């Protein structure tokens, strides 16, 4: 016989063995030798946390009580794994792209990162999982008690303290390996590998007991089958269709909704492709687990004394046959089942509790500092998780003590299942229906949970414990239609099927109605699109655009959550991607999203969003996000942005064309006006020439003086024509830039001298004041062209100065690298409104006096532009004043 001390030692050794494995795996992972850890088979084995102590011990008991019905618990998940790979892949993809940390995170993230919803899901999960943890503790203590039984009832006098020890041991293990790294997306390699090992151990243990039962004591396969057939209760294929389909549905839902299943299925998943292996290997595993359930049950019922607990046949059968070794192995199998479930469930729940309850409260309690608090937030998060783990296990222990461990194991398990199955509605609704809203999800969950509490959970404590016999039979306060096991007067259903049916049905109904009647927030629409179209949206969820975030603040926050090294690496990587020097990247929308995703791996989407928004200073959703939602898919977005770009381009082109057209029209108008002007300027002298030449020809009686006068007019007008043509040609050459400049150093005095000499003959006598000293300045320019300018100005003064005694003052002064030559007369000057136009072609001021074509100043302006200087009218000088500015050294010398 195995003594309790030996058993305890075995437990401790086994625990130490798991420690070692987990430790080795973590080390291998850190050293980059984690290839085999990420094998699809490990993933499949880790899924076996589905098979808990309830399955290990309880399935046999279940079979002993209800025949083949225990199979439903395996059929549900198998159907999902085999038949619904597409849906699972979608959940995995969403989990990965949104960096989901738990089932609560998934649902809250979908519905606009609502923390309220996360809290609701977390609470339901805790309530639904606590009995299940209690169940595991119970099964471990019961199995201890089996071994203790021969030693007398006093040997395990205090099973409750034993349960406490088991709970404490499990808490220690979970804390050690479950909170090693903060980011849930870094995954718990050690835990996963330990669970995979436990999966192998429990399968082998059950197979060993099974083989012993069939071939060791049962006398072979045929005899065993015959015995099963012969057994009155088990031999018949009783199938209650309603209950069977209810249970299959429930267990299928459990695969998706149980926090621990979500943890291993989604959060710990390394690679979507592992799903392909798991889709056949996991059902195969479960077939192997269920293979010997029936033979063991039958053997137990026939061989063991009446009244033995069928839930413990797996242990008592080998014990009664004196196979202590096998019994211990079987015990370890059961122990493995219990511990693996508790560890994963504790990790999953603690993540939810710390991310959605503890952290938000803690953040709120940091007045005014928010995400920018000093100190290591990481430490807070990890502590929160550790406390949560211990809390969850303690709750399980409390439940175990309060419930007294009396009820059949399987019953609690199913009630737990149906509690968390409420998540199925918002989960599936959220990932397949974009119209689903937060209000709908909350209302549906609340309804489903309430119905579950009333119909399943409270009655599960037993008649008269929480709900009195009267309430069960007559309904509360006499409301018959509210009877917990016959809602709305529909009786005759199996209580479990009844509860599941109503809770899920009402949940779905309220969810749908609530979603249809409420209006989703922008963030919900955004996340809805991201979730429903996760395969199309290969990219990232959009939620930040620019903002005034300080990268440094973000880094400080990120360091606290991710650790200094990881955060700096992340920022540096992003800075590199943005092409920014240094460690701090621009807080671009993309980067903020990436950061938020990284952080959500540590603290959950809602909290991460809240923290980033505290720093970025803006929790609202941008217009860009709304556009992202409005457009059905990324393709449409891309297409529309292409269209947008094209249309913007068209608008640009159109504007350019319009401008070009305007310019052309303007040029065309100018050309028309110019031609019209030239026509006028040419026709005017020609009119005189023609008229007087006809007069000379047709008038015989004419004095010699008259003839001379008219001949003189003809001659003058011919000269005027010539001058006009010369000017036009000159202007054309200057404007086309074809002019050849002969640049050479020359004194200004020399140029002025030549100009004054050339104009001496025209017009009235005029006194010219000069500044001989200043005129000595040297200038590098084209002397002929500059002379032309001066001639024009002096000639104009002579022509237009209307003073009785005309005077012209020519002043030279320095202006930086240029010389200023001012020509100021004492006439009445150019009227203000004309000053702007005098440099235009054909602009003439006042009456036609000397037959100029109005091209002189236009030519001056062109010449000075070529020489690198300028000419301007100088107002307010008493008379007409022009300022010429020429560079001392021509910049055009090189040309």
């Amino acid at each position, binding site marked *: 016989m195995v003594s309790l001390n030996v058993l305890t030692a075995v437990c401790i050794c086994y625990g130490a063995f798991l420690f070692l494995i987990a430790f080795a795996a973590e080390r291998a992972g850190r050293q980059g030798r984690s290839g085999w850890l990420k094998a699809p088979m490990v993933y499949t084995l880790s899924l076996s946390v589905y098979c808990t102590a309830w399955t290990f011990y309880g399935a046999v008991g279940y079979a002993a009580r209800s025949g083949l019905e225990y199979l439903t618990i395996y059929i549900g998940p198998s159907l999902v794994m085999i038949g619904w790979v597409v849906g699972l892949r979608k959940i995995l993809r969403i989990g990965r792209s949104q960096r989901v940390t738990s089932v609560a995170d998934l649902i809250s993230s979908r519905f606009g990162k609502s923390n309220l919803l996360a809290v609701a899901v977390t609470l339901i999960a805790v309530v639904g999982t606590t009995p299940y943890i209690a169940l595991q503790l119970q099964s471990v203590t019961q199995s201890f008690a089996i071994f203790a039984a021969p030693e007398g009832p006093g040997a395990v006098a205090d099973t409750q303290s034993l349960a406490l020890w088991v709970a404490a041991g499990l808490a220690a293990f979970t804390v050690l390996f479950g909170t090693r790294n903060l980011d849930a997306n870094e995954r718990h390699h050690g835990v996963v590998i330990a669970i995979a090992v436990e999966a192998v151990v429990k399968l082998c243990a059950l197979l060993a007991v099974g083989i012993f039962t069939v071939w060791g004591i049962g006398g072979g396969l045929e005899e065993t089958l015959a015995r099963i057939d012969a057994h009155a209760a088990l031999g018949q294929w009783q199938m209650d269709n309603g209950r069977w389909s209810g249970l299959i549905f429930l267990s299928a839902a459990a695969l998706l909704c149980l926090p621990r299943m979500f943890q291993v299925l989604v959060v710990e998943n390394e690679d979507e492709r592992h799903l392909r292996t798991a889709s056949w290997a996991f059902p195969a595993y479960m077939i192997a687990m269920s293979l010997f359930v029936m033979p063991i049950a039958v053997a137990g019922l026939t061989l063991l004394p009446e009244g033995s607990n069928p839930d413990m046949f797996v242990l008592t059968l080998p014990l009664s046959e004196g196979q202590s070794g096998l019994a211990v192995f079987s015990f370890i199998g059961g122990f493995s089942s219990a511990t693996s479930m508790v560890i994963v469930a504790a990790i999953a729940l603690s993540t939810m509790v710390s991310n959605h309850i503890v952290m938000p409260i803690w953040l709120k309690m940091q007045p005014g500092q928010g995400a920018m608090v000093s100190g290591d937030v990481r430490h807070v998060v990890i502590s929160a998780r550790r406390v949560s783990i211990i809390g969850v296990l303690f709750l399980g222990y409390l439940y175990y003590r309060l419930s007294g461990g009396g009820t059949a194991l399987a019953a609690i398990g199913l009630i737990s299942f149906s509690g968390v199955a409420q998540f199925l509605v918002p989960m599936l609704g959220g990932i397949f229906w974009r119209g689903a809203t937060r209000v709908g999800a909350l209302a549906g969950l609340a309804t489903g949970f309430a119905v579950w509490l009333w119909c399943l959970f409270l009655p599960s404590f037993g008649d008269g414990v929480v709900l009195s016999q009267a309430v069960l039979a007559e309904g509360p306060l006499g409301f018959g239609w509210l009877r917990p096991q016959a809602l709305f007067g529909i009786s005759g259903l199996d209580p479990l099927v009844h509860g599941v049916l109503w809770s899920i049905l009402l949940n779905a109904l309220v969810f749908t109605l609530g979603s249809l009647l409420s209006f989703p927030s922008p963030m919900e629409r955004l996340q809805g699109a991201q979730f429903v179209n996760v395969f199309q949206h290969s990219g990232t969820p959009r939620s930040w655009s620019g903002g005034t975030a300080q990268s440094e603040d973000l880094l400080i926050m990120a360091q606290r959550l991710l650790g200094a090294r990881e955060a700096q690496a992340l920022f540096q990587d992003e800075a590199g991607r943005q092409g920014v020097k240094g460690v701090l990247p621009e807080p671009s929308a993309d980067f903020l999203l990436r950061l938020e995703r990284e952080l959500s791996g540590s603290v959950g989407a809602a909290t991460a969003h809240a923290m980033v928004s505290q720093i970025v200073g803006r929790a609202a959703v941008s217009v860009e996000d709304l556009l992202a939602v409005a457009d059905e898919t990324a393709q449409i977005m891309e297409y529309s942005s292409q269209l947008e770009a094209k249309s913007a381009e068209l608008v640009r082109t159109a504007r350019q064309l319009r401008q070009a057209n305007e310019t052309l029209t303007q040029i065309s108008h100018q050309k028309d006006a110019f031609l019209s002007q030239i*026509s*006028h300027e040419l*026709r005017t002298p020609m*009119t005189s020439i023609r*008229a007087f030449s006809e*007069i000379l020809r047709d008038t015989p009686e004419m004095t010699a003086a008259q003839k001379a006068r008219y001949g003189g007019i003809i001659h*003058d007008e011919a000269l005027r024509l010539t001058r006009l043509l010369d000017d036009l040609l000159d202007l054309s050459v200057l404007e086309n830039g074809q002019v050849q400049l002969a640049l050479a150093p020359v004194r200004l005095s020399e140029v002025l001298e030549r100009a004054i000499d050339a104009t001496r003959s025209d017009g009235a006598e005029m006194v010219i004041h000069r500044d001989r000293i200043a005129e000595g300045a040297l200038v590098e320019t084209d002397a002929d062209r500059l002379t032309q300018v001066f001639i024009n100005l002096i000639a104009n003064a002579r022509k237009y100065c209307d003073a009785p005694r005309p005077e012209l003052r020519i002043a030279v002064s320095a202006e930086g690298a240029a010389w200023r030559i001012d020509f100021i007369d004492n006439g009445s000057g150019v009227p203000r409104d004309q000053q702007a136009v005098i440099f235009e072609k054909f602009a003439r001021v*006042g*009456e036609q006096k000397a037959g100029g074509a109005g091209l002189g100043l236009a030519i001056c302006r062109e010449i000075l532009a070529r020489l690198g200087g300028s000419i301007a009218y100088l107002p307010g000088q008493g008379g007409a004043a022009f300022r010429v500015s020429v560079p001392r050294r021509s910049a055009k010398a090189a040309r």
Partner: protein
Amino acid sequence: MGKSVLVIEDEPNISEAIGFILSRDGWRVATHANGVDAVEAVQARKPDLVILDVMLPGRSGYDILRDLRADAATGALPVLILTARGQARERRLASEAGASHFMTKPFSNAEVLEAVNALIGA
């Protein structure tokens, strides 16, 4: 007898040529070189005929013509428009403004005589 003509033209040589031709034909010729007070000049001299250049300093010949046409005293006065700009557009503008006749520079002397005599109905 003797019909009177007012030549409103800013080019002195052209005024002189027209004056010479019309004087020999028996006209009393007066000249005016400015657009600004051309209307007043017409009203003051009350000529039988006006020869009006379009491009005048200070005021366009068309504006002057419009004013003359708007005034009852000069509304029916024969006006010969002279322009150095030969486009068809000018001809249209002139007829719209109420020109009696339109001539493009340079003109032949015989043409001018023919036109003025036709306008005066002699």
